[in-house]
């Protein structure tokens, strides 16, 4: 299906079109970028007829077989929800950066390049291609943070690059060992030939560490707060929304099925790190003075849930991980979007300087309250199903020690509600008396994400239906014990 290829070609064409449009008039670039991201969504939607949203695999164009087919794209139940997330966040990121003025054309084309690379990660059916896209993601993000970021952007950009590059370099060694031992590059062939691996545990850790850095798992998360806080709003949206998901996706696509026995042997490490991440992320979020940093640490906590869910190694555990990832993929971008909108107006993110914004900017206040409720896992909103299922499955797999992670749930309520109380409620801070509320244009992406949060909250089957077959197969692979 050419439509599969279009998911990469459309944003890439958008990059060129955006740069050219920027030469004609700076304002055109954002329109072109928006059209390209909508085009991406349309291309994905056009595949609905092929059944991608009910978990049917769809193959991209096959390169002639006598060549080594590195170019090999495929959508299946594991990638479909994350591609949908990428499609959803594309227009949101462009709308969120509608008012960027400093070299807007380059900024938007980097966003499109990022979208192409992330889509490539989710689409690649060949491990080398997967790695190429995995690394390609770094380049636009590095420049987005370094050029358009806030005060400490240079340091944050370097740190982001070095950390994630270090992780993926180790992953490369794992991939090299797999590819050159088994003698294939297609992910399916690698998984089928995995018994040939001499040292599966080594391969597992080499692969997994790159993905755990990306996720990020405690204690490999330290790049994340800096990168999230310093990135421009659109960068934070894509970073939190889809880049972190590459970690969980990679584990389920490659590391776990390649070396299932090793995974099963050390899955307790995942559970422990996940549990620590849940509590630690929430506890640190609670004491943040910077609103954006608070949201950043909440990501660490949510990714802890993903890790705990993965550690169970069951079909429902994987579903729970996917639900948490997709939910976080809409909630965190909404929070970053709102914080960005506030920063545009006030040029500060210091929680202590705000108060009573519910009165001054009722729409913004309502939106933040809504996002905070979603983030803390209120039933009916997207955060609940995944985290609930994680706890149930975690209890099934690890029994009572899972209780150690439960303070994290309470702390999640605490830091989210604290943010709402201090920023939205309370005494009106005099210095922001003239502040403008969200305009209709500002509201558009907010409502878009809010709708997604409600849909996912009341109808989590939407995701589970897509992933069912894949996760059943994955759990079965783990069950084989090889």
């Amino acid at each position: 299906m050419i439509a599969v290829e279009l998911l990469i070609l459309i944003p890439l064409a958008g990059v060129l079109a955006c740069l050219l449009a920027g030469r004609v008039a700076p304002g055109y670039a954002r329109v072109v970028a928006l059209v390209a991201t909508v085009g991406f969504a349309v291309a994905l939607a056009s595949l609905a007829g092929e059944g991608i949203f009910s978990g049917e695999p769809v193959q991209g164009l096959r390169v002639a077989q006598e060549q080594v087919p590195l170019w090999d794209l495929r959508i299946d139940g594991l990638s479909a929800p994350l591609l949908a997330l990428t499609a959803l966040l594309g227009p949101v990121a462009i709308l969120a950066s509608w008012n960027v003025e400093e070299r807007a054309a380059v900024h938007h084309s980097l966003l499109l390049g990022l979208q192409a690379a992330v889509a490539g990660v989710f689409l690649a059916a060949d491990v080398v291609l997967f790695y190429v896209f995995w690394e390609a993601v770094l380049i636009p993000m590095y420049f987005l943070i370094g050029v358009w970021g806030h005060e400490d952007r240079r340091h944050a950009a370097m740190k982001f690059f070095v950390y994630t590059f270090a992780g993926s370099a180790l992953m490369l060694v794992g991939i090299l060992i797999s590819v050159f031992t088994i003698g294939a590059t297609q992910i399916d062939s690698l998984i089928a030939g995995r018994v040939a691996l001499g040292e599966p545990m080594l391969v597992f850790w080499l692969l997994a560490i790159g993905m755990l850095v990306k996720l990020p798992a405690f204690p490999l998360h330290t790049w994340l707060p800096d990168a999230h806080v310093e990135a421009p709003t659109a960068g934070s949206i894509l970073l939190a929304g889809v880049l972190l998901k590459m970690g969980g996706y990679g584990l389920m696509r490659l590391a776990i099925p390649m070396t299932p026995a090793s995974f099963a042997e050390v899955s307790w490490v995942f559970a422990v790190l996940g549990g620590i991440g849940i509590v630690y992320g929430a506890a640190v979020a609670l004491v943040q003075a910077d609103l954006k940093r608070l949201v950043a640490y909440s990501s660490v906590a949510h990714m802890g849930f993903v890790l705990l869910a993965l550690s169970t190694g069951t079909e429902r555990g994987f579903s729970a991980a996917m639900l948490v990832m997709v939910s976080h993929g809409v909630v965190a971008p909404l929070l970053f979007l709102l914080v960005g909108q506030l920063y545009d107006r006030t040029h500060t993110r210091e929680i202590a300087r705000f108060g009573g914004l519910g009165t001054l900017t009722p729409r913004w206040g309502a939106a933040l309250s809504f996002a905070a409720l979603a983030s803390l896992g209120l039933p009916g909103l997207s955060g609940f199903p995944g985290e609930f299922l994680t706890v149930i499955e975690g209890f099934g797999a690890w029994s009572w020690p899972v209780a150690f992670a439960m303070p994290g749930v309470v702390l999640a309520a605490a830091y989210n509600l604290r943010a709402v109380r201090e920023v939205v409620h309370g005494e009106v801070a005099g210095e922001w008396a003239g502040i403008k509320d969200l305009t209709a244009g500002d509201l558009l992406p907010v409502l878009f994400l809010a709708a997604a949060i409600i849909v996912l909250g009341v109808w989590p089957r939407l995701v589970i239906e897509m992933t069912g077959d894949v996760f059943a197969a994955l759990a079965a692979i783990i069950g084989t014990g090889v």
Partner: protein
Amino acid sequence: MTGVSLFVAFGPHIACVAGAALAVALDAFDRRPLAVLAVVAGMTAGAVVAFWSTGGSPSISGDVVLSGSGFSAAVGIICGIGALVVLGGWRPLTRTPSGGGLAALAAVLVAAAAAVAVAVDLLVVLIGLEAMALCAYALVWSARTPSATEAAVKYFVQGAVATGLYVLGLAILFGLYGSSTSYVWVRGVMGTEAGPPVTTAFVLIGVAFAYKIGAFPFHSWALDAFESAPPHLAAVMAGVPKLAAVVAMIVLFSRSVFAGLSPDYQLWVFGSLAILSMVFGAAGGLQQRSYTRMLAYSGVAQVGYALVGVALGAIAMTSAAILLTAYALASGAAFLAAGAFRTARPEWDGTIAGLAGLGRERRLLGASMAVALFSLIGMPLTAGFWGKFLLFGVAVTAGYWWLALVGVIASVVSFGYYGAVLKSLYFETPVGTAVSGEEPAVDRGAEMVVAVLAVALLAIGIVPILAGFRLLLGVLTFA
């Protein structure tokens, strides 16, 4: 031996030297642009002849050189990159006195490198290495600054030591097996026995090569030489000789004269040099403030990666050649860019920090530099990625995954200094720009050549993804 095959085997070298001779003559009449043109034309012709003869399997011509398949392709790459890089130095070469002569020296260096890469005679390799080095001393010295003179003398003295070691090794082999220095002859009479004298010769010649390519701990000349040489000439000296020498090393150590030695010798001698060079080059690079000195350390690290290939022997030949091709393209771009930076910002003090904001001022140059730096790091979508990917893949296949691990860790560390350049170019704003009324000059020629080199890096990086490896591996097959 037909005339055609002789022409094919020696054509590239003759073309380069003819270009150089013509350039010297033209330079005598102060026709510098014509002289540079003659050099570029000679090397281009050499590249065309070499690529034209890449078919078939390698064969020995005139008992002296190999030709055909990857050997001809290596010669073609050496001549092609040489031609491009000299073209990139057009502006400074045509503006300095005796610039035509310098271009001619560059062409002789390229011809010598092309000879070293394909030679199958110990004496020819020695003469090639010496010719290369003599040209390089002069190129370094041509900056005519006190530090360049000092660097050239240091380079000369250390180079002489290396030559001495090589000659000693050669003397041992000649003393033992006499009457000819051709690889085939030596290999034939040596048999499979490898007594202590042969091992000694192996170490002596190995160390001499390590000097010539600037591997740690034999690298100290390279740091000063690359820092103080005129950057457009350093661009010729950086990549091309390393590509030639590494191809020659693998032929010499793993495929012919010393192939009878236990592969463990190669592995331990060159493997330890590789690890030391990767680690030291990366760690040293981090300390540097000077842009060109950083590039010199980067060269040490890249030689370390290539030595992984030498340590692994014949199976790593193709991937080592791809890695060094990528390095030659990227280092050529990076050194030429230094010259272009100087033209665009005459007050530049040569530090990395001094490049602040230049990526935004000279957009094409900045973007091309970014591509070259990403290739040196080994990021996907550039040629540098495939070099490291294939080379570390060979290491893993041979069971030495820890060599690959050291390599990727060194690559991560190297981001510290390549990234510092990116940071300066793009994340910093220019400070204290000279407000002299006149517009700073622009070296468009150099910028265009840097862009062409960047496009080549991207093409090599992207085409295999779409069309498979056959094309890339097919060009540089040495079987």
